Every structure is written in structure tokens, then in C-alpha cells.
């Protein structure tokens, strides 16, 4: 079953090319093909999760070159989980894009969508730092196209900032990778971890500097303070399905910190073991506070949801910064929740915006939207989940992270920041909800479009993950604990990657 790892990367790439040619067959063909492929990816990632639960690392040697020399793809429980989240989110976003005919607004939406998935899956499955850079570029290039899809002045402006900041990030990535290669002479993550553990003392400073530079790069992707300024504008200005899909993009940064830093600066790294975690924890706390202020100050619903994404990323950074298997398990639970809920909230904001006509999503009194009671209930459900109030999954995620923080010497700072930020977010969301649904002006003619039921289906589908995570909280936390134990078991990872033999040719 080695091939499953490679297929999860190859299928979106092939689908992207096929969709490019399917354009001649019309939009309907492209839509059904894309939907089919995304559904296939969902089933494939479920299979991958099942396969990863055996606890064995599935290593795929590209071109049959053994580990430190060739490029490897590694499927473990963490990457299987990330691929599963990606394909579920992609299904919701694609469904919404088709239901609202958003893909009609420009050409190549479906092609870019699949290439984006190609980059994401590749980044989650690769076991090589330089290959991670290449997949980052693939997913970024596709995201540039998707971000600008549909056009518009403000979107172009936000897109320009997004592209420039990510190009700077790519340059820094190469500097960091180059410095690491210069110091340890390898690019394979497992081999790098093994080499760093025996590195001479005079090289440690260079390795630490390169590691922190790499943290800056992943911080740009994850929108960590002070590198988050691009996020709210880009997410608020792009279209809803793309913003929903981008909810996973910040998690690529989180994943990369867990995978790369967690592996090469794991407990075997001697003096450098976990030297980066205080940075992640401290910057996470600052990000969370600033994100809560941003949620308070937002002028429109989409901007507010963008800041909520930032807050969820900050919470994840705190979880990663705590650096214990228990904290990582809580972080992964929160990651499943926050990615899918944030995607759903972006789509919901678009539905509300469409219903309000010229007022769009701005926080100002406007005529009542069609089906206000139904949409309002969904909004309240999403707001409760997003801000982390009981009884939905956001609350459990935060409680688990705080419980894992009990041992930490910064516990009271973490407790204070998380609680204050949650309070600010609850106030802001309550204000947003009352403004959007209560302070309405009576009119004879409804201003916006009628409710698109199929589009709302996508929102409800994504938000449904929250009650599922609560009802099945026990098996899900057991699963995330299993994942985090495997992530912390670096020795097995290194052993698995470096000892995989090349397959023999069958004569």
C-alpha cells in the first residue's frame, strides 16, 4: 500500500491537467470531474488515516532512491490527519463555489483548485525540507490565482500584498534551508535530525539561527505575530470559497513547525532540544491578544472571521509552544475544529453578505435578510463554536489546551490571555449578531438575493463537525493522543525513513 502516499499527491496534479483540457467540454464537465476527484480524495484520505493507525510509517521513495539521497514522502498519523482535514474542507468549499456559480467569474477556477490541493497534500506528506519549499511554492502560486479569482480593485490590492510578503517568505525559506544544508549537509528531515544530534558544538549557533529563520518563514504562513498583517485583508477581500479553503493554509505553517522543528529539534538534539518553543508560546500569546482586539475592531463580518482565524492559529501556536504530547493532542483536536468551522464561517459570511445586498457584510443597520431566522440560528451556532463557548467543540479544545498548560510555568499568563481573548471575541460576536439580525430596518422589498439552499448546505455540512467532535469527543481525543505520541516519537520516525530499502526490480 506504499502507493497510496504517492497517489494522494499525484491525483490532484493529474486532475489539474485533466481539468485544464476538460474546459473544452464546458463548465458542467469541469464541475463534475472536480467534485468527483475531491470525493475520491476524501475516501482516499480516510483510507490513509486507517492505514496510518497501524502505527507504521509509510515511506515512499520517489524514483526508488533510498532516504538521505532521494526525496521521500512519509505518511504518518499526523500527515494523514492533515490530508483528511484538507479534503473535507475542499469538499465544502467546492460545493459552495458550484452552488453559488462562483467558479463562473473567471477561468481556471477548477484547475487552480486542484493544484492548490496538490501543493497542500504534497506539503503534508513530504519528508524533505527542500521539497517542502517546492510544495509551498506550488500551493502559493495556486493560491495567488485563487485569491485574485473574480477580480476587483480591493482584491487586487490585497493580492499584491499577499504575493509580495510570500515571496519574501520564500527567499527567507531558501536562506534557512541553505544555512541548514551548509551546517549538516542534508535536506532529509529525518537525516537532519540524526545529524544535528551529533553536530559539533561550534555549529550549534548556526543551526539554531537557521532554525529560527525557518520559524519566521512558517510564522509568515501561520500568520504569527508580527507577521500576520497580510492575513485579515487578504482573507476578507477574497471570495468566500477561496477564503474557506485558505482556512487550511495557515495550518500548513503550524504543521510545518510541528513536523520540521518538532523532528529536527526534538529531544535527541541535545543543547538545541526544543529551544524554539518559548518563542512559539510567547508569540502565540501576543498573537491571540491582538487577534481578539482585531475581532473587536472589525468593520465587516468577513474581516471579523479573518481575525477569528488568526485567533484560532494563535491558540494552536500556544498548544505547540507548550511542547508536550498532551498539549499536542489538545492542539490537534482544536485544529480539526477550528479549520472546518472557520471554513464554514467564511461561507456563512458570504451568504449573509449576499442577503444584505448593497450593505454587504459591513456592520451597519440594513434591511432584514431573507430567511433571517434560519441563517441567524446557523450564525449563532457558528459563533458559539468559534468563540469557544460550551457546549460546542471550541470550548472542549480550549479546555484541553488549558489543562495541558497546567504544568507550565507560564500557566497564569496563558490562562489570562486565553480567557480575556475569548471574552472579547464573545462580546464582538454578540455585537455582530445583534447588528446583523436585530437592528434591521423594515422595508417592502428585500434588498439581497434569496437564500441559496444548496450553498447553505455546504455551511451546515462544515459546521456539523462541531457537534460530531463533541459527541465523539472520547474516540477523537484518543485518536489525537495516539497521533501526538507518534509525533513525539522521533526515534521511530528517523529509523523508519532512513531504513526503508529500495524496492527490488522483479525480473
Amino acid at each position, binding site marked *: 500500500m506504499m502507493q497510496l502516499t504517492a497517489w494522494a499527491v499525484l491525483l490532484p496534479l493529474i486532475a489539474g491537467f485533466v481539468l485544464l483540457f476538460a474546459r473544452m467540454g464546458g463548465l458542467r464537465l469541469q464541475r463534475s470531474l472536480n467534485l468527483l476527484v475531491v470525493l475520491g480524495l476524501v475516501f482516499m484520505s480516510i483510507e490513509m488515516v486507517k492505514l496510518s493507525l497501524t502505527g507504521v510509517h509509510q515511506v515512499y521513495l520517489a524514483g526508488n532512491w533510498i532516504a538521505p539521497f532521494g526525496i521521500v514522502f512519509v505518511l504518518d498519523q499526523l500527515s494523514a490527519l492533515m490530508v483528511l482535514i484538507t479534503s473535507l474542507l475542499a469538499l465544502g468549499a467546492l460545493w459552495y463555489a458550484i452552488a453559488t456559480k462562483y467558479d463562473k467569474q473567471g477561468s481556471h477556477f477548477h484547475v487552480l483548485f486542484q493544484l492548490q490541493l496538490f501543493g497542500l497534500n504534497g506539503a503534508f506528506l513530504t519528508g524533505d525540507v*527542500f521539497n517542502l519549499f517546492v510544495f509551498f511554492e506550488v500551493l502559493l502560486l495556486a493560491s*495567488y490565482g485563487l485569491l485574485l479569482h473574480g477580480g476587483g480593485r480591493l482584491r487586487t490590492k490585497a493580492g*499584491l*500584498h499577499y504575493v*509580495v510578503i510570500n515571496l*519574501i517568505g520564500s*527567499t527567507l525559506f531558501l*536562506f534557512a534551508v*541553505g544555512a541548514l544544508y551548509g551546517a549538516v549537509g542534508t535536506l532529509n528531515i529525518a537525516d537532519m535530525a540524526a545529524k544535528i544530534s551529533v553536530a559539533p558544538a561550534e555549529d550549534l549557533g548556526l543551526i539554531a539561527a537557521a532554525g529560527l529563520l525557518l520559524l519566521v518563514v512558517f510564522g509568515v504562513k501561520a500568520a504569527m505575530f508580527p507577521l500576520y498583517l497580510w492575513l485579515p485583508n487578504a482573507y476578507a477581500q477574497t471570495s468566500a470559497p477561496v477564503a474557506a479553503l485558505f482556512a487550511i493554509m495557515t495550518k500548513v505553517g503550524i504543521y510545518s513547525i510541528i513536523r520540521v522543528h518538532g523532528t529536527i529539534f526534538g529531544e535527541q538534539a541535545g543543547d538545541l532540544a526544543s529551544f524554539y518553543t518559548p518563542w512559539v508560546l510567547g508569540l502565540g500569546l501576543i498573537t491571540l491578544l491582538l487577534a481578539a482586539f482585531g475581532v473587536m475592531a472589525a468593520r465587516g463580518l468577513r474581516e471579523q472571521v479573518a481575525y477569528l482565524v488568526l485567533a484560532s492559529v494563535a491558540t494552536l501556536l500556544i498548544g505547540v509552544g507548550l511542547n508536550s504530547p498532551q498539549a499536542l493532542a489538545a492542539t490537534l483536536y482544536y485544529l480539526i475544529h477550528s479549520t472546518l468551522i472557520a471554513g464554514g464561517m467564511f461561507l456563512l459570511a458570504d451568504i449573509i453578505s449576499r442577503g444584505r445586498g448593497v450593505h454587504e457584510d459591513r456592520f451597519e443597520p440594513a434591511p432584514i435578510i431573507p430567511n433571517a431566522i434560519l441563517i441567524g440560528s446557523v450564525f449563532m451556532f457558528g459563533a458559539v463554536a468559534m468563540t469557544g463557548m460550551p457546549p460546542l467543540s471550541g470550548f472542549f479544545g480550549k479546555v484541553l489546551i488549558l489543562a495541558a498548560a497546567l504544568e507550565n510555568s507560564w500557566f497564569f499568563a496563558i490562562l489570562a490571555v486565553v480567557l480575556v481573548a475569548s471574552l472579547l471575541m464573545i462580546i464582538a460576536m454578540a455585537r455582530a449578531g445583534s447588528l446583523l439580525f436585530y437592528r434591521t430596518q423594515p422595508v417592502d422589498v428585500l434588498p439581497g438575493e434569496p437564500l441559496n439552499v444548496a450553498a447553505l448546505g455546504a455551511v451546515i455540512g462544515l459546521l456539523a463537525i462541531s457537534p460530531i467532535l463533541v459527541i465523539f469527543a472520547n474516540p477523537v481525543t484518543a485518536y489525537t493522543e495516539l497521533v501526538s505520541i507518534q509525533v513525539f516519537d522521533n526515534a521511530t520516525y528517523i529509523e523508519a525513513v532512513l531504513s526503508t530499502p529500495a524496492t527490488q526490480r522483479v525480473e
Partner: protein
Amino acid sequence: MEWLIAILIGVMTSAGVYLTLRARTFPVVLGLTLLAYAVNVFLFAMGRLTIGQPAVIDAAAAGYADPLPQALVLTAIVIAFGMTAFLIVLALKARGEMGNDHVDGLHLADDERLPEQISSHNNQEAKS
């Protein structure tokens, strides 16, 4: 030779950073290009500086140049080239849609005005 390469990378990086911090799109594009050059030379240098050594297996060779950074630089050049081309097109699009080439769009803090008003304003600015 090491100090020459080090100074070269340093000068290109600082020039790139300076240009990237400019307010108009064209210097930013140039700055990013310079940064890409700097990082390419840096990647090369990370394979250690050698002269006259083959990179592929040669029975007569006394030693080898590290071939991996060369492959990395090749990839990095291709990616940087594609990204620069994309950025130039995007900068042109932004110039066309916003009426000026400021990275932050309008420098008059008025984001909601129509493009005609902006171009008339720019004309007035040019006259005065």
C-alpha cells in the same frame, strides 16, 4: 574568495531589502529579484567553494564539487523566475485598476473613490 562571495551576498541582500521597502511596485519587484539572486549565490556557497572539481562521478577526479546545491539553485531560479513574472503582471494589473503604482494602493487614504476621480486627481497633481 570566501570574503568576496560573502560581501557580494551581503550587498545584494541589503540592496534587495532596501528596494523591497520602497513604496512603489517596480522597485519592490527589483528588490525581490535581487533577494532571489542573493539567495541563489548563498545556496551555491553552502556547497563549499571549490574550483575545477567535477560534480558527477569521474574515476580520475581527486575530489568532487557538491552537486546538490547546484540542483537546488536550478529549482530556485526557475521558481523565482516564474514568481517574478507573475508579480510583474500583478503589479501592472494593480496599476491599471488603482490608477497608480503605490504598493498600498492609494496614498490619499481614500479607498472608495472611483478610478476616474483618481486619475483626474493624478492629472491635477502632475500639473501642480
